[in-house]
């Protein structure tokens, strides 16, 4: 049930709303006019060109008929070389002197230096000395208020297939819980 008062109110409120809306539209127009006249608007043509090139690139990549970027492993590189999937170059470990294949160097070094999860339980003299000498907390990392450069924002890498024996699936800690 709507009496004359309510009709008036509805009319009045939509009138006021219309006024406010007009004012806001003119605000935006005025601001954009100023930006355009003062040359503050970014180079839209260049931006559009970048967008177009990106869209084009994505379309080409998505197209199955295109010879897509092949898995670069197992192919010949630009210098005409081929490499095995696990690096086979042999060199001496600088910690213990043993001969190690490059592709297995990191897991070896971890045990050799007493680092890593399993080795951390044994505290060796060298690792504590290293920790005391190179304590973290230098100004480079104080940027953290603006970024979560600490553990909460990390993308890990790791291919379970290329692993030493000690790599175990499924039981590793979530990376972001590491301190």
């Amino acid at each position, binding site marked *: 049930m709507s009496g004359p008062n309510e009709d008036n109110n509805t009319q009045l409120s939509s009138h006021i709303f219309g006024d406010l809306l007009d004012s806001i539209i003119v605000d935006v127009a*005025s601001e954009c006019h*100023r930006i355009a006249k*003062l040359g503050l608007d970014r180079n839209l043509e260049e931006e559009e060109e970048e967008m177009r090139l990106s869209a084009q690139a994505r379309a080409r990549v998505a197209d199955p008929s295109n010879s897509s970027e092949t898995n670069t492993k197992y192919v010949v590189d630009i210098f005409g070389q081929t490499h095995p999937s696990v690096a086979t170059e042999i060199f001496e470990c600088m910690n213990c002197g043993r001969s190690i294949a*490059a592709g297995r*160097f990191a897991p070896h070094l971890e045990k050799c230096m007493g680092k890593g999860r399993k080795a951390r339980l044994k505290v060796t003299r060298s690792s504590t000395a290293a920790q005391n000498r190179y304590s973290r907390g230098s100004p480079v990392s104080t940027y953290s208020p603006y970024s979560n450069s600490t553990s909460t924002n990390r993308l890990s890498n790791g291919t379970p297939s290329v*692993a030493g024996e000690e790599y175990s699936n499924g039981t590793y800690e979530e990376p972001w819980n590491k301190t």
Partner: protein
Amino acid sequence: MCLRSSSYTSPKPCKHLADYKLRHAFNGYDSLQNCLKTTPIGRTRVDNHNTKIPRCNFCNGYQGRLYICLMCSSISCSTHILLHTQSKSGHDVAIDIERSELYCCLCCDQVYDPDFDKVVVSEQIKGLCPGRSNKRRRLDSGMELDLKKSKRLIAMRDGRAKSCYPLGLRGLNNLGNTCFMNSVLQALLHAPPLRNYFLSDHHNRDECKRRYGEKLCLLCEIGALVSAMFSGDRSPYSPAQFLYSWWQHSSNLASYEEQDAHEFFISVLDGIHEKESKVRNSSKDDGDCQCIAHRAFSGSLRSDVTCTICGFTSTTYDPCVDISLNLDTVNLSAAEKTGLSTLSGCLNLFTRAERLGSDSKLHCQNCQELRDTSKQLSISRLPLVLCLHIKRFEHSLIRKTSRKIDQYLQFPFALDMTPYLSSSIVRSRFGNRIFAFECENSDSSAEYEIFAVIAHSGMLESGHYVTYLHVNNQWYKCDDAWICEVDEGIVRASQCYMLFYVQKLLYYKANKDLSCNASVESR
């Protein structure tokens, strides 16, 4: 306030505005100054104290746009403003009451005058309380890194391949889940300031060992890496010594397992800085640090916290070596995610004025009370090399899980950082008035060119990093030991995780030096 040329164009006044200024100079503006009122959000209007509600002289209307004549202060609506000009000769210029914008009645368009903007801004600044913290740092970019010297140290070019590939291109063996390290090293070693620094032997390894005797120096390790990469030998190099040294430096990250490339990047810069500050025995804060890591990557972020009630703004500056960006579609629901995520969108999000929730009220020095505030970040000083880190990580508090966001992010090859500078952000807060604000920094350019992209593929816990490098107008994919040529389209379509841009001038200079045809001498 000094008057300096700024990055925008001061438009030529129309004939009528020019005439007005010739005849009346600033009289009209000055008398108007007392009538200007600024709201805390930065909007300035003309508040004629005499009348309560401004009404058009002709029709008595109060709706729509109203203008006040600069000559006689009479008010007209947009319909009748022309009548006013016609009835009174010389009354050509008026001001939009709501927005304090000049209007030329004869051109029927909004016009702009730096002198008028100066009046408005002075009023706006006066309206805000004085005493803003003003930790202004003038910084020297120190770009010249002896490019001539580095040319001399480039080794004989490799004549083996059919076509000549740029020096410095060399694969890195994966030592066991170390692609995170390889990808960052490729990007770092090809960053022009770093590459030149090490190629010109600014850090002499023999001298370092002689003087400091320490077994561990990350600078020496990187220097050794650079030498190896630029030696002309194209067989993949094993950065084992580097890994060993790095694990000794960052013992908390030393383990054979999945690692994050960005974390490694920060750790390496940290290591370089630490050594440098030990050497110089100084504890300079990062803005003035002259270690190569900071000289190349250090920039400065400005944070403005504004009281929403009185407009009082408190400003602080913080150094940074990179910028971590949230994806710009991260807050949208699945249905809305049809839009494209772009780097400029992420940067806009980063520099957006954000209202802090009512549960985090801050104490306003002016109001002397806890108030709702709005916070806005901007870049007060750009680095030589700009590293942008895309946070592809989403943490769900409900499910207590985290996942990787595979969303495609469009990024440009040529990047203009001007809109994200403090000067632009602050100016837009004052309505983009023509005025030389104190934070104008026209020393360094804001134009960047991309030179490296670190892309991640796969899942959160098990994925793979590769680096795309742009050298001599050709893109190369560095996938551990394999270096391949790729089309730029592959790079554009890739899932970027870290983007490396270098200031345009440095980029073109650097590429010239590295061309294969440069005359070379062996070391």
